[in-house]
């Protein structure tokens, strides 16, 4: 293998699994250390710059970071249940216990730069664009059909998961940057909006159309069949305050979980979720399924809806065909009827949460925006630019339904594109991230991070008493960590951003690092091709998604090969190294957002 080039930012970035997995690349270990230090405000600001909505995401994020978390792999076969660090809920700790941070927010400049940007939809993508551009002097106007800003954050996520105050606080931080919000203003024509002379338009209108289910009886029983996301927003608006006693929720995504749990609070005693697929393949996050089942909601799987049953124009139940999954040679799943008799479930109401679709009836097809065969706009993945150079898409509107953190990432990227475009630059030249690598050594055995690895298992976030939570839809279920358990959970973080940096020319090959490494990560051996090398290490390196860190040939002609997979970042290799060939260095990567830093250096100099 060729020696690893640690100068490429991606190398150490990948070692920080959580940050690499986060669409917005939030420096997770950095803020977790700040939480452990009780510096909640600082931890909040690290998040705020990166993901804009720490309090909201700390309750609702899809947390792609957690399945990626090294702790989950490290605990395998070491504890009964291997679990990642509760990264998401630690974010909430920062938001819950921070001091007043309003003085640390950027200020909107008094003198604007004369550029006007319109954002369609006031969801997380648009608000991120506004947050990034307003402090630079752009005049940003955000339109939304609803009177409140926040988009799906408040209309679709139920209050028992996300209280209104949290939304208001974080949305107001953005609107407070002299961002104009025009609520209750529906944009019915893109051409008309374009004609208003905005320098750039950002479309972050979400995926507003819930998919319906067209099976017999749908029309006849329509009064008691509701499309999930519409029903959820009616609940948020206060238009709907009750539901029948027996409710069936169709669908296996997070919306279905919100629907069933909301039903439990609006009068549904017998609420069940019924999905076509197997329980394991459901799209909902595992913890959302758990939360639903914890509230006494069964999830029945492998049942394909066949018909709505009705009597005298009133819904009485549904029938389902029992199926099983079969996989073909290519691994594609097919649902095969088992031949068992159809199953019938009685119910008073049905909520259909079987998917969301994009809809752009307000974009004229001759506006210059190209659409693909599925009716989606043609959007560049990196720049988020449409076929009209100054029109950008982001969030669910760009590539279909995803989640808040992806919307934020799109918002950042689109803001960079808009800033570059309006400064006469090529939007395809993307700015490099800001990277630093600093030794953490303070003394012979002292590091500026706590390298004593906690052996604790994941701490459970406490819940409020179900007697209270099922009664009132506005009572938040999760209480969040208190400061003590927040600290203890933060200590579970392995500090993967504190990197093991190896300097071959200092190494005397004494084996001290090999002997001390608790995870057998380090091997000194003859060089070979990667596949061969992976088999010959002190512990087999079978996880090929994790890199090998390989040195140049050392004095004996051997190389140092370190498997990054389950490194604890405990720094014992560096403590045991007599020559300082190993050092623990903090790698901090921050994405470059819109502003002078995102523009090309040549222009900066000019």
């Amino acid at each position, binding site marked *: 293998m060729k020696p690893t080039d640690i100068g490429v930012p991606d190398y150490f970035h990948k070692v920080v699994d959580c940050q690499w997995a986060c669409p917005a690349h939030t420096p997770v270990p950095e803020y977790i250390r700040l939480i452990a230090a009780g510096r909640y405000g600082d931890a909040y600001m690290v998040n705020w710059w990166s993901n804009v909505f720490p309090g909201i995401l700390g309750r609702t994020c899809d947390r792609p970071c957690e399945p990626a978390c090294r702790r989950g792999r490290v605990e395998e076969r070491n504890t009964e249940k291997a679990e990642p660090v509760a990264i998401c809920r630690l974010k909430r700790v920062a938001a819950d216990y921070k001091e007043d941070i309003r003085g640390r927010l950027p200020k909107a400049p008094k003198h604007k730069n004369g550029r006007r940007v319109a954002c369609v939809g006031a969801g997380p993508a648009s608000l991120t664009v506004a947050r990034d551009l307003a402090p630079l002097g752009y005049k940003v106007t955000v339109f939304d059909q609803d009177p409140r800003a926040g988009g799906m954050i408040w209309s679709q996520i139920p209050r028992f998961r996300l209280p209104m105050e949290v939304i208001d606080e974080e949305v107001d931080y953005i609107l407070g940057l002299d961002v104009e919000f025009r609520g209750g203003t529906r944009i019915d024509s893109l051409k008309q909006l374009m004609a208003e002379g905005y320098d750039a338009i950002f479309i972050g209108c979400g995926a507003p159309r819930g998919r319906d289910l067209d099976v017999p009886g749908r029309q006849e029983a329509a009064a008691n069949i509701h499309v999930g996301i519409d029903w959820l927003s009616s609940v948020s608006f206060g238009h709907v305050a009750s539901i029948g006693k027996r409710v069936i929720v169709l669908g296996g995504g997070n919306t279905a979980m919100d629907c069933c749990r909301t039903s439990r609070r609006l009068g549904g005693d017998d609420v069940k979720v019924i999905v076509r697929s197997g329980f394991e393949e459901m799209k909902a996050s595992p913890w959302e399924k758990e939360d639903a089942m914890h509230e006494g909601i069964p999830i029945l799987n492998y049942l394909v809806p066949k018909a709505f049953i009705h009597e005298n124009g009133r819904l009485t139940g549904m029938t389902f065909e029992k199926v099983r999954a079969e996989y073909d040679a290519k691994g594609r799943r097919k649902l095969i009827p088992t031949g068992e008799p159809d199953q019938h479930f009685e119910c008073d109401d049905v909520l259909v949460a079987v998917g969301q679709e994009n809809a752009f009836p307000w974009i004229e097809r001759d506006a210059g925006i190209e659409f693909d065969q599925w009716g989606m706009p043609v959007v560049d993945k990196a720049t988020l630019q449409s076929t009209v150079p100054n029109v950008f898409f982001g969030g669910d509107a760009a590539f279909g339904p995803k989640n808040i953190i992806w919307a934020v990432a799109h918002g950042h990227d689109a803001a960079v594109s808009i800033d570059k475009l309006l400064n006469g630059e090529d939007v395809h030249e993307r700015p490099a991230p800001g990277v630093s690598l600093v030794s953490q050594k303070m003394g012979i055995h002292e590091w500026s991070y706590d390298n004593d690895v906690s052996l604790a298992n994941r701490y459970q976030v406490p819940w409020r008493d179900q007697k209270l939570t099922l009664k009132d839809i506005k009572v938040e279920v999760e209480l969040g960590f208190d400061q003590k358990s927040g600290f203890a959970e933060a200590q579970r973080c392995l500090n993967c951003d504190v990197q093991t940096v190896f300097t071959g020319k200092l190494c005397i090959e004494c084996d001290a690092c090999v002997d001390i490494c608790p995870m057998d990560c380090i091997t000194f051996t003859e060089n070979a091709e990667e596949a061969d090398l992976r088999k010959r290490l002190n512990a087999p390196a079978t996880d090929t998604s994790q890199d090998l860190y390989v040195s140049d040939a050392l004095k004996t002609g051997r190389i140092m090969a370190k498997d990054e997979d389950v490194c*604890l970042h405990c720094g014992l290799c560096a403590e045991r190294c007599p020559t300082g060939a190993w050092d623990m260095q903090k790698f901090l990567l921050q994405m470059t957002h819109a502003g002078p830093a995102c523009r090309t250096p040549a222009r900066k100099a000019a």
Partner: protein
Amino acid sequence: MTYLAKPKLHHPTLAKNQIGYTRRDYEGAISTLCAGCGHDSISAAIVQACWELDIEPHRVAKLSGIGCSSKTPTYFLGNSHGFNSVHGRMPSVVTGANLANRELIYLGVSGDGDSASIGIGQFAHCMRRGVNMLYIVENNGVYGLTKGQFSATADKGSKSKRGVTNTDEPVDMIGLALMLGATFVARSFSGDKKQLVPLIRAAIEHRGAAFIDVISPCVAFNNHPGSTKSYEFVRQHNEAVNRLDFIEGRSEITADYAPGEIVEVTQHDGSVLRLRKLAPDYDPTNRVKVMNYLQERAAEGEVVTGLLYIKPDSADLHQYLNTVDTPLNQLAERDLCPGSVMLERINAALR
């Protein structure tokens, strides 16, 4: 030296041996030696060897004297018996312990000061009596605990860290062990576990006095140019006569050999040591030739390593003394006192 304990977490694929222990179960407390000390590598090699041999930790007694090396038994086999004796007196304590209980595995860990200076007499008698033990000298040629004076094994002409040249002849521990009748004599290097671990395994299984001289660089005081016990010097001058690759009935064959490349040594219990020859015509069972060869190579400035000498039909102190099979510490009064009837009979016979 490290202040933190080694985290209990281990690699998810860490294997268990026949008796259900992982290698980590054979570790001891965290080492307080200097970072990079060769002794820590030897501790790791002992841990590995004991794990591979499926040894029950309570069947091992580790004994030592005084010095950096003699601190190390704390850092391995945390669940075994330990005895930290007076400076240089480890061999006497092992001899006594071994006589009292022949069933334990005795592991004596000593250093060049402990064995070649203050304890040289003890070392000599332990070897010539054939106490059934593994005697490891962690040899760095320097007094580390007192900041770097030459020890008795420092080579004549080698330089101290301060630049002073050693004028005294070194004590040749291997030569002494051979002369005094040790029946398993090996030399290895702390920086070469592939060589050291099989040697420790074979030595533990050997009956009689097994001696391994492990050159173990002192990073703090003897790892500079001019030293003959530094990592670099030993790597450059290391002449291995053989590789111990295989112990029959214990591990798998690791390579195929052409005929003539292998020396097989059958031991007292029928087990076979399979040695891959690196020096042609080297016969590790011929003591006189071995002694000559070592003198010749030493004159050339080479550090000869490997299994240097083995006596296949070795015996030990218990055999020489013709003791009973039952460990002496298990013999009760009933076994030891023949009783008054027997006494009468004996007395009658002598009248």
